[in-house]
């Protein structure tokens, strides 16, 4: 075992007494093997499979099963999930609440997913919201925001944010923000930027005012990603739009904010995002303003990347001690 080698080494250097070496060696050989993250993954996988399977099942058997039975079954399951979460909840605080445990956390998530299934079913079957589709999306967003704050749950918070985004017609999940949205054609760019900025503002305020400041990461990462993708898309788009004209300074401004924020909170993710988006906008502006001959192009990239790498190697000073 690697730990034995370390122990022998430390004892040889006189940093550990022989008794201590024996105790630690014994601890290393007898300590239990933690299955924590594996079991959590299994639990989450089960939740995704169950809610997904139930959702499809409902739509396929709309006419075969009694509607009231379905509604009752899902409501019951949902209520059980929420009840379990409520039973294990800790009192509300604007600080970070102590974690209630893995099971209540994930059952709350399952409850929220079941709520979506149930609401979708009611809408499909009874047209609960008629043609007011906005309302159908807005209700889960409002509910999830409340639950996220009440139960101090970042997963539910991100579900609330995605629901809010889909109310406007955007997809905000980290990967589908790239693939699902078509900012070039849909004219959603402006809305995306505004929502992104609003989310960033919410994150910043929660950090500043100390209102659930650990939520700031979720708000800022989802919000800034959305705003920056939308502005960068507008920047590179050939169609002249209002957003396109202010896109370059906006990207630079947002990147600057992220780097400044990374400096304040010692967060490397935001430094990475700020640097990459900022570099794209800067490069675009550079070739827009100056002659884009190929000689300049081949010199530009080695030179600028070298400068950036030097900056990053000094990043410890930029970001500060983590």
């Amino acid at each position, binding site marked *: 075992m690697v730990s034995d080698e370390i122990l022998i080494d430390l004892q040889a250097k006189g940093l550990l007494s022989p008794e201590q070496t024996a105790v630690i060696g014994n601890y290393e050989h007898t300590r239990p093997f933690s299955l924590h*993250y594996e079991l959590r993954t299994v639990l989450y996988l089960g939740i995704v499979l169950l809610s997904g399977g139930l959702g499809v099942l409902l739509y396929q058997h709309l006419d075969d099963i009694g509607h009231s039975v379905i509604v009752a079954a899902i409501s019951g399951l949902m209520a059980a999930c929420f009840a379990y979460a409520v039973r294990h909840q800790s009192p509300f605080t604007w600080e970070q609440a102590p974690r209630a445990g893995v099971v209540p956390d994930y059952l709350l998530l399952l409850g929220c997913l079941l709520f979506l299934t149930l609401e979708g079913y009611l809408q499909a079957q009874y047209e609960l919201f008629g043609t007011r589709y906005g309302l159908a999306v807005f209700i889960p967003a409002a509910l999830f925001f409340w639950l996220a704050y009440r139960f101090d749950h970042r997963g539910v918070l991100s579900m609330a944010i995605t629901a809010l985004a889909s109310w406007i017609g955007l997809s905000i999940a980290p990967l589908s923000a790239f693939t699902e949205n078509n900012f070039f054609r849909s004219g959603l760019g402006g809305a995306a930027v505004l929502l992104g900025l609003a989310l960033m503002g919410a994150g910043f305020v929660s950090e500043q005012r100390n209102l659930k400041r650990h939520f700031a990461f979720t708000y800022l990462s989802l919000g800034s990603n959305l705003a920056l993708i939308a502005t960068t898309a507008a920047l590179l788009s050939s169609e002249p739009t209002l957003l396109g004209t202010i896109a370059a300074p906006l990207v630079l401004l947002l990147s600057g904010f992220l780097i400044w924020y990374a400096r304040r909170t010692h967060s490397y993710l935001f430094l990475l995002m700020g640097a990459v988006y900022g570099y794209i906008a800067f490069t675009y502006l550079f070739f827009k303003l100056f002659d884009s001959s190929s000689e300049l192009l081949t*010199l530009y990239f080695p030179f600028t990347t070298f400068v950036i790498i030097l900056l990053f190697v000094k990043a410890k000073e930029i970001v500060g001690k983590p």
Partner: protein
Amino acid sequence: MILKAYNPAWARAKATREAAARWQKQGLLSPAQLDSIYATHPLDYYRPHIFLRIALFIFTCLGSGAASGFFSLFGLSNYFLVVCVLSALGCLVVLEISIKSSRLYHAGPDNALLYMTLGWLTALVFYSVSLAVPAAFRNSFSPGNPFLPLALIPVLGLLVAAVVRYADRLVSAFAFMIYILLIFNILSHSTIGRLLLPFALMLASAAAYYAVWKVMQHVDRFYYQACFTVLKALSLSVFYLSGNYLVVREGNALLNDMPASTQIPFAALFYFFTVSIPVAYVYVALRKHDRVWLLIGLLSAAFSCYTIRFYHSILPPEIAATIAGVVLIAFAIWALRYLHTPRHGLTSVAEGEEPLSFSLESLVVAQTAPSASQPEPASFQFGGGHSGGGGADSSY
């Protein structure tokens, strides 16, 4: 040792500090002892946070790629060989100098430069081989090309040398895959070879696992730890996949240019492998407390379920998903509670806090959870013009 590009003391110091910090948290070391261990094992290398490493990696790739483009500007573009040699040499020199002067230790730029060097050298080897072989095989990179070993063997040697010197995980993974590809290529030319292919690949990966285990006893474990983990995981995966019924059956169809896969010889044996290997992996993992075996075991178990469903779908997918979901949730809740107090050498309590993964968890939920609740019935249509960018979330 001259063989190693990085100072071997760095890897040892890192492992020692991590172990000591863990022991101190358990109350086995006094804070004063921890301080003296930290003082005698300084971390005097540069290895920033993961996100910073990603950024450094991207920018180094961009910069060195553009620099190679710069070479080719001076009329060198006609001489591909010259560009390859110059670029490889340039990357290698910068790599060595930056490790010496900036004390980089798998910090992003050194990874990028290493991959660039090896990439250019691989291109060089392939280009030279393609000039030497008959024209018919020149531009074919299919795994069955009989001249492929001519290029693969030097590349494999190159990668192994790079692993020995730089102990890079990705390079060791590539070396392993080329080793497997080589065996595949040699065997796929004859009928009997194709018949024995699954067994040969299982044997090859078992041999690789044994060789890795043997080598590990004799070399600097700290320096090569990450590479050994990667090689272990890959040989376990390839061992499982070469015995998997789906892989063997579909692979057999591909090799023999059949339009649809048909029943294969020894089908029962491969079904047996498909079912028993994951079980064996998980069992060994829980007995030996080995996380690599456990993760590969769980992944292969999932793939075995997929394999069996692929040919014998007993239940429609939505019912299967619902039942599987209930079973998994029930099992996970039971196991989390049952192992809350350690039993059988296992526990469900986390070993150490991982604040980063807690923050990132919400992004995983944002990515996966809403798509689970999006039903896509053929009969149900969107009412209005709201379908805009609704995408993968809760809009119906």
